[in-house]
């Protein structure tokens, strides 16, 4: 059966220091990409889910984010659901 593909985007909260983004921006400038005004580096997580219906899935994935995938103190997350590979 074709399951569900969940896409999770975890990004540093606004206002929270993102040292990684800062360092990447610096290197891009050194490489001559001066047009880069700001960089934020986060996580992108793809999950294949089996045996779950779409509506239930959303709630489950949000739980996964709160309990493991994202750190609510310093990170925000966003979830998208799509057609999974079978």
């Amino acid at each position, binding site marked *: 059966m074709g399951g569900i593909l969940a896409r999770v985007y975890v990004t540093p909260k606004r206002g929270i220091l993102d*040292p*990684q983004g800062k*360092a*990447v921006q610096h*290197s891009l400038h*050194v*490489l001559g990409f001066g047009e880069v005004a700001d960089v934020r*580096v986060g996580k992108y997580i793809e999950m294949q889910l089996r045996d779950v219906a779409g509506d239930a899935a959303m709630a489950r994935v949000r739980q996964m984010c709160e309990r493991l995938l994202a750190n609510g103190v310093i990170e925000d997350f966003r979830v998208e659901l799509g057609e999974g590979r079978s």
Partner: protein
Amino acid sequence: MRWGVIVFPGSLDDRDALRATERVLGDEAVPLWHKDRDLHGVDCVVLPGGFSYGDYLRCGAMAKVSPIMEGVRAHADAGGLVLGICNGFQILCEAGLLPGALVRNRSLSFVCDIVTVRVETSDTPFTMGCRAGELLNLPIKHGEGCYVADEKTLAEIESERRIVFRYTDRGGRVVPEANPNGALANVAGVCNAGRNVLGLMPHPEHAVERLTGGEDGLRILRSVQLWCGQHGAGERSAPTVVSGP
């Protein structure tokens, strides 16, 4: 001989590499600044351990684009010796001077320990003073030392005997329990096709004194001395190496 140790922003074991080559081996050793392009005529350039650019984005990703790497590439193409230790190994892979890549340890946590590695071939300037099959006890300390490569690449480096070190147990057996980071085929170090560029996760420069970490690292550093002695300092010809006994 003359060693050069590159200092990237966030290099940490650069001072240890300088101590090992200068104070312990008694060679000439100079720091090389990442913003330079010139290697100041060194025979062997060391990319030291550490967290260049904080390991942000990917280990070695940002160091690979610094000016000094142009010098390193030219040096390597001319047959000069390049030794990448830990973060230096990661940088050489990122720069495409070595095959494969290093990713997060399977445990996902940093590991500091003394491990046993087996010398897989003495047919490199870095191991010509060792016996193939010889066991060395060396420190490791890394969070991203899991060596990965696609099957084709792995098969290739296997057949060309370019896997230079493997993690083993104390008895020299290649077993999963002896693998500290999940590296494919227990790979601890590999060299390029020209055999003049070596990268390894363990730290030979931290095993050069009885009092601090043992002396097995000298087996590797002395091999480099030996090779440079035979090939004349400064000379730039692809290494032709007689296999050890």
